[in-house]
C-alpha cells in the first residue's frame, strides 16, 4: 500500500479547533478591526451614509496591516505532517548502526548528498543542498520535548502549543506572538494557506486568517451589484445577533472572508503550481510579494507517516518539498529575500529501526530545517546516538523545540520569546544577519583546476544585441551564453569561467543568476541591482551543456552584460599565489601614475607584474579596482596592455559614487594592465591581492559560505568597528578551511556605516598596507569579494578608516597547495 497514511496526514487539521468559545472571532474584535471600538456597532447600523457607498471603501482600509518594515523578519512555516523521518532527511550515513537498524529503508551511502563524512541530505534534496552549500540552511538535530508523546495528535499539540505536557492547549506559539504584536489589524499579519487555521496560529486574543490554496474571489466586487451584496453581507455582523457567540462569530467570519477575497483574489492565477506544497509555498511567496503586512505564513503537507513503503513515499515528498522551495525562492521578490526565513515542523521523528513493511513507526526527536539568507548555515544540536538502540527505542531529544522557537522569535520575529513561551530557552543563534541585512548569496559558484587569464571579451550585452537579441531581459527570462570555443576559451577541459557580470537599467529591483546550462536554476543571486544603478560583480560560474552558461533575470526587465576574463581548467598550470595587498595605482597621490584624474576616453598603463611580491612572469593578477569620486556616470575597462582595447568593463559607476570590484586580470607585456575611463573624469585605485603563474602553488577551492565574524551584538559580536580601528579575523581552524590553506576568498559586508569610509583587509601580523577592499557609503549596505593571503597565525586583519560600522565576513573559498 503506497498510499500515504491519511490518518495522520492532516493531524494539523485536527488541531485546528479549540472546542470552546469562539475566542478571537467575536464582535469586539471585528469592531476593533473596522476601527470603531466596542459599541460602535449600534451607530454603524443606524448610519444611513455607510449603506451602499461607504462601508467598503472607507472602513476596509482598517483591515490592512502596515507593510513589513525593512528590518522586520518574515517566517514561513512548512509542516511535514505525519511525523517526518529525520534519519532519512539528514542521513547519518557514516554510522553503521543506521544501516543495521533499518535495512530496506536506509539510504545507500553513495546516494547521500554528503555534507561531511558523517551526515548528508536525502538524494531528493538537491536544491536544499545547494542552499546549504551557500551557508543558508541551519539543520537543527535532535529537536523534541520532554516526555515525548507518540500520538500524532498529542505530539502535534505539543509542537503547536509550545506548551508540552499541557492537556488540551487552546493557543499556539505563533498565535501568542501575534497577540503581542502592535497594530489594530491581524487578517494579514499571519495566515495559513489551507482550509483551516491550525492551533499554532491561534492566539488568546487573535488568530491567523486562512487562505484556501485554490483561492477565491468572492469579495472582489466586479460591479455595483456585487458591491451591494458584499456590503449587505458585511453589515450582517454590524451588531450582535443575540443568538450566542457562534452566530456572531460566523457573521464576522463572513465579513472577513469577503475582505480576504477582495485582497488576495488577484494573486491566484492559472500558472500556480499544482502540487500541494509547491502551490502553497508559491502562494506564500506571492502573499509576501503583495506586501500585505504578512509576518508569518503557515503551509503544510504530507503524509510523512511512513509505516509502510517509506522509500518511495518519503522520496516523493522530500522531492516535492525541494522543488517547492526552489519555486518559493524564485518567486520571492528580492527585496524580501533578506527578510524571509523558512522553518519546518513535524509532530515527531520515526523509529531508527525499520519495520517489516519497508516503513518506520512513530518516534520522537528529529531534525528540522531553518532556511534563509539570514541564517547561520550549518549543523546545530547533537547528532542522534543510534548505538545500543532496540526495536522500540526512541531517540532522545537534545534540543527543546521551544529553544528552536525562541531562536526564531528573538532572532527573526523581533523578540519576546519568553512571553510567548512562558520561560527562557536557549538561543541557538541560528542567524548570522538581522532581517533585511543579509547580502544575498555569495557570488562564488564553482572552480577547480588552474586559472587561465584572457584578454576580456564580451559575450553578452542585451543593450546592443551581443550574445542575444537586443532588448532587456524580462522577469523570469534568461539567455544561454556560449562560452567554450570563444575568445580563447578551449572546447574541452574547462571547469568554470570567470565572468564580470553587470546588471543595469533595471525597471524593478531584481537580481541576476548565472548557472551551468542544462542544470536546474539554483537560488544564487549573483548580482543584485536596484533601479537606476549599474552593478558589476565577479562571478565564477560552472560551464554547462553546450559549453554555455545560463543567465536569468527574476523581476521587471534588466539589461545584462557579461565579460569573460578567464577560466579554470583541469591540468592547467595557473595556480594562485596570494600576496600582501599592494597598492599599484592611486591617481590621487601619484602611486603608479602621475597625480591626475583620468579623463573621459583616456587610458593609462599600470605596472603590476615585477613589482612588490608579484613576479615578472605572472600571467594574471587578482586586483581590487576602485573608482572614486567620478564626475559622471561611466565605466572602466581593464585589459592587458599593448593589445587592442576590448569592449568590456570591469566597473560601472554612477556620478560621485565610489565603487570597488574584484577583477581577475590578465597581464600584458612588461607586467602591465591598461585602465580606461569612459566618461567624465575619475580617480582610480588598484590594489593587487594575488597573482597566477607557473610557479604559484595554490588552487582555489569553493566552500559553503562560512561565517567568520559578525560585529553586531545581536549576532554575538562586540559592537561596531570604530574609526581607525583594526579587528583580527581568525580563518584557519574555522569551518571547512584546512590548516594547510594559504589564502582565503571572503565575502565582506559592511552594514550601518555612520560615515563614508573604507575597509582594508590584510594578512595579520604584517604592517597595514595602503590598500582598500570596500568603500561603504554612510547608511548603505555594501559588499565585495576579497581574495586574501593569510597571516602567519592563519588570520587576516580588518581596518576601518572612518565612522563606525558593522562588519560581517564569510569565507566562500580558500587557496591550498
Amino acid at each position, binding site marked *: *500500500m503506497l*498510499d500515504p*497514511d*491519511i*490518518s495522520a*496526514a*492532516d*493531524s494539523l*487539521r485536527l488541531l*485546528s*479547533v479549540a*472546542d*470552546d468559545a*469562539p475566542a478571537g472571532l467575536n464582535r469586539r474584535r471585528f469592531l476593533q478591526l473596522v476601527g470603531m471600538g466596542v459599541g460602535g456597532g449600534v451607530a454603524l*447600523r443606524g448610519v444611513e451614509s455607510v449603506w*451602499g457607498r461607504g462601508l467598503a471603501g472607507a472602513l476596509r482600509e482598517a483591515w490592512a496591516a502596515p507593510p513589513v518594515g525593512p528590518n522586520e523578519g518574515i517566517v514561513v512555516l512548512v509542516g511535514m505532517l505525519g511525523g517526518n523521518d529525520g534519519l532519512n532527511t539528514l542521513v547519518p550515513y557514516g554510522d553503521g548502526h543506521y544501516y543495521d537498524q533499518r535495512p530496506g529503508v536506509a539510504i545507500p551511502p553513495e546516494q547521500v548528498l554528503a555534507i561531511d563524512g558523517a551526515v548528508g541530505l536525502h538524494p531528493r534534496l538537491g536544491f536544499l543542498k545547494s542552499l546549504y552549500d551557500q551557508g543558508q540552511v541551519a539543520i537543527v538535530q535532535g529537536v523534541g520535548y520532554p516526555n515525548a508523546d507518540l*500520538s*500524532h*495528535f*498529542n505530539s502535534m499539540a505539543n509542537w503547536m502549543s509550545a506548551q508540552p505536557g499541557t*492537556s488540551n492547549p487552546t493557543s499556539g506559539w505563533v498565535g501568542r506572538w501575534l497577540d503581542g504584536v502592535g497594530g489594530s489589524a491581524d487578517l494579514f499579519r499571519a495566515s495559513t494557506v*489551507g*482550509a*483551516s487555521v491550525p492551533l499554532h496560529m491561534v492566539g488568546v486574543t487573535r488568530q491567523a*486568517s*486562512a*487562505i*484556501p490554496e485554490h483561492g477565491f474571489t*468572492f469579495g472582489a466586487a466586479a460591479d455595483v*451589484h456585487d458591491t*451591494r*451584496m458584499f456590503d*449587505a453581507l458585511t*453589515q*450582517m*455582523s*454590524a*451588531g*450582535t*445577533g443575540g*443568538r*450566542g457567540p*457562534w*452566530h*456572531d462569530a*460566523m457573521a464576522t*467570519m*463572513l465579513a*472577513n*472572508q469577503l475582505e*480576504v477575497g477582495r485582497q488576495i483574489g488577484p494573486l491566484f492565477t492559472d500558472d500556480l503550481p499544482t502540487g500541494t506544497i509547491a502551490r502553497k509555498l508559491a502562494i506564500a511567496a506571492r502573499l509576501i510579494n503583495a506586501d500585505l503586512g504578512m509576518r508569518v505564513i503557515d503551509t503544510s503537507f504530507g503524509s510523512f507517516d511512513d*509505516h*509502510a513503503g517509506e522509500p518511495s513515499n518519503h522520496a516523493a515528498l522530500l522531492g516535492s518539498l525541494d522543488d517547492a522551495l526552489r519555486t518559493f525562492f524564485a518567486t520571492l521578490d528580492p527585496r524580501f529575500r533578506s527578510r524571509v526565513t523558512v522553518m519546518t515542523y513535524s509532530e515527531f521523528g520515526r523509529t531508527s529501526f525499520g*519495520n*517489516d*513493511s519497508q*516503513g518506520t*513507526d*512513530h518516534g520522537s526527536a528529529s531534525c528540522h530545517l531553518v532556511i534563509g539568507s539570514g541564517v547561520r548555515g550549518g549543523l546545530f544540536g547533537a547528532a542522534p546516538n543510534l548505538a545500543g538502540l532496540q526495536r*522500540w527505542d526512541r531517540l532522545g531529544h537534545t534540543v527543546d523545540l521551544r529553544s528552536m522557537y525562541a531562536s526564531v522569535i528573538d532572532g527573526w520575529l523581533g523578540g519576546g520569546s519568553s512571553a510567548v513561551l512562558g520561560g527562557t530557552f536557549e538561543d541557538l543563534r541560528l542567524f548570522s544577519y538581522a532581517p533585511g541585512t543579509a547580502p544575498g548569496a555569495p557570488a562564488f559558484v564553482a572552480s577547480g583546476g588552474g586559472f587561465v587569464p584572457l584578454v576580456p571579451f564580451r559575450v553578452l550585452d542585451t543593450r546592443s544585441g551581443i550574445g542575444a537579441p537586443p532588448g532587456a531581459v524580462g522577469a523570469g527570462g534568461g539567455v544561454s551564453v556560449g562560452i567554450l570555443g570563444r575568445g580563447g576559451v578551449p572546447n574541452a577541459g574547462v571547469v568554470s569561467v570567470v565572468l564580470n557580470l553587470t546588471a543595469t537599467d533595471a525597471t524593478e529591483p531584481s537580481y541576476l543568476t548565472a548557472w551551468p546550462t542544462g542544470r536546474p536554476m539554483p537560488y544564487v543571486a549573483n548580482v543584485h541591482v536596484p533601479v537606476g544603478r549599474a552593478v558589476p560583480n565577479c562571478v565564477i560560474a560552472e560551464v554547462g551543456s553546450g559549453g554555455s552558461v545560463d543567465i536569468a533575470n527574476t523581476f521587471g526587465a534588466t539589461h545584462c552584460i557579461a565579460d569573460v576574463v578567464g577560466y579554470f581548467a583541469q591540468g592547467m598550470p595557473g595556480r594562485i599565489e596570494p600576496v600582501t595587498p599592494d597598492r599599484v595605482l592611486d591617481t590621487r597621490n601619484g602611486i603608479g601614475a602621475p597625480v591626475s584624474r583620468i579623463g573621459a576616453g583616456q587610458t593609462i598603463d599600470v605596472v603590476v607584474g615585477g613589482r612588490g611580491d608579484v613576479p615578472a612572469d605572472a600571467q594574471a593578477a587578482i586586483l581590487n579596482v576602485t573608482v572614486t569620486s567620478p564626475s559622471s556616470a561611466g565605466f572602466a575597462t581593464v585589459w592587458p596592455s599593448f593589445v587592442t582595447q576590448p569592449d568590456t568593463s570591469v566597473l560601472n559607476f554612477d556620478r560621485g559614487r565610489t565603487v570597488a570590484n574584484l577583477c581577475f586580470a590578465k597581464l600584458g607585456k612588461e607586467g602591465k594592465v591598461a585602465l580606461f575611463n569612459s566618461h567624465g573624469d575619475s580617480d582610480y585605485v588598484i590594489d593587487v591581492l594575488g597573482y597566477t603563474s607557473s610557479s604559484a602553488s595554490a588552487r582555489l577551492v569553493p566552500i559553503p559560505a562560512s561565517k567568520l565574524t559578525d560585529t553586531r551584538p545581536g549576532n554575538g559580536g562586540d559592537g561596531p568597528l570604530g574609526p581607525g580601528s583594526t579587528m583580527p579575523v581568525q580563518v584557519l581552524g574555522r569551518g571547512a578551511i584546512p590548516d594547510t590553506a594559504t589564502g582565503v576568498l571572503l565575502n565582506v559586508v559592511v552594514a550601518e556605516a555612520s560615515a563614508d569610509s573604507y575597509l582594508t583587509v590584510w594578512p595579520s601580523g604584517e604592517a597595514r598596507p595602503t590598500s582598500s577592499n570596500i568603500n561603504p557609503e554612510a547608511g548603505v549596505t555594501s559588499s565585495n569579494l576579497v581574495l586574501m593571503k593569510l597571516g602567519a597565525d592563519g588570520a587576516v586583519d580588518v581596518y576601518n578608516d572612518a565612522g563606525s560600522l558593522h562588519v560581517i565576513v564569510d569565507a566562500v573559498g580558500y587557496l591550498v597547495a
Partner: protein
Amino acid sequence: MADPADVAHLLRRTEFVARPSRISALQALPLSAAVDDVLNVPPTSLTIPAEIATQQADHNYEQFVFALHWWLDRMVDAPRPVAEKMALFWHGHFCTSWDKVFDTGWMMEQHKLFRDQALGNFRALAHGMSQQLAMLIYLDGIDNHRDSPNQNFARELMELFVLGVGQYSEDDVVAAARAWTGYGIDWTTRTYRFWPADHDDGPKTFFGTTRNWDGPGIIDEILRDDAAKKRVASRFLARKLWEFFAHPNPPQVVVDAIGDVLLASDMEVKPALRALLLRPEFYSDTAKTGLVRTPVEYVVAVHAQTGLRCADTNPEWTMEAMGQMPFRPPNVAGWKPNRYWVNTSAWAARTDFARRVTWKLREGHAWDHLETDSPGAAIASLEQAFAISLAPPTRAAMAGFFAAEQYWWRATNALTMTMLAPELHLA
C-alpha cells in the same frame, strides 16, 4: 406537549433539519414521546447499490462520488434520518478514509456496519469495525506481523476509539499491538482472515494481566471485563456523543449520567442517546446556540430546503474545502466541531456552494417573485423556505439590500445572501 422550539432543536440535531411535517407530528407529544419517535426507527439492513458494492478499479473516483451522492441524498430523503446522523457519528469516530483504503466497496461495507448498527451496541461495533477491511488497511493491521508488530491500530483503538489519552501505558500499546498480530486480509478472496501463524501467541502483559491475549480479547477486556476501564470507556463515549449532538465541553454531571446509562445497558447506544436527548441541558441556550452546522449538515439542510439533489450541486467540488468530505475524514481522530469550520478559507467554500446553488435555483422561476416582492414579503418567504428566523442585524442588512437592489440581481443575490446568513449555519 413539548415546546415547539425544543422540538425544532431536537429535530435539527437528530434529523439534520426541522421539517414542518415532523414538527407538527411531534409537538403534540410529550417530550419523552417525541424523543422516542425520533429514536424508534425500524431496524434496517442497508442494501449497497451494485454500482459501488465492489471496487471497479478503473472507476474508483466515480464510485466514490456515487457513494457520496447516495449517502447525502439519503440523509435528505430518509423520513426519520437519525440512523444516518448516527452513521455519520460512527464514521467520524471509527475513522477510515477512502484516501488510504482506496476501495469504495470496502468503505461501503463499513458504512453498512455503521448504518445498520447505528443505535446498536458499542462493543459489538468495536468488534465489527476491527475486522473490516477498510480498518485493517487504514490503521495498518495488515502490516501488523508477529515478527514486526505495527502499533497503529492498537494505539488508536485505545487513544481515539474506546478510552482516550492517558488511560494506558506504552507497555499496554506494545502488548495490544502483539495481541492484534495476524488479523489481516485473505487477498485471494478479498475478505477478512485471521492468520494463526502470523499471530504472536506468547504471553503479554496488558493492563497488568499476563496471558496470551488476542485482538478481540483486548476489546472485551476494555468494554466488558475490566470494570474500571469499562467505566472510563462509558464516559469517553458519553462525552463524544454529547459533543456531537449538544455542544463541546459538557458538564461532568451530564457525562456521568449518560455514561451510567451506557454501563447499565452493557454499552447499548440507544438508551444512552435517549438519556442524552432528555437531559434538560440539551434544551439550554448553551446547547441551542452551541454548534455550528458541519459542512455535511449545511449541504443537507440546503438540499432539504431547496429540493436540489447532489446531482444538481456537485458537493464533491466544494466540501473538501469546507473541511468535511464524507468517506474522507482528515485523520483518524475524525472531524471536530465549531471553530474547525469557521475560518475565512472554509467560509469561502461555503460561499462557493451557495453561489452554485443560487444558479441552479435561478434556472427555474420559483424565485422570480423576489425581484418584485416588498422587502418584508421577500424576507418572509426566504425565512419560511430556509426554516430560519433572521436576527436583527441580518434582517436590517437584507431589508437595506431589497430597498437598494432591483431586477434579476435582487432575487439572485438575495438567495445567496440567505444561504450565507449566519442563521442557516447554526446547527
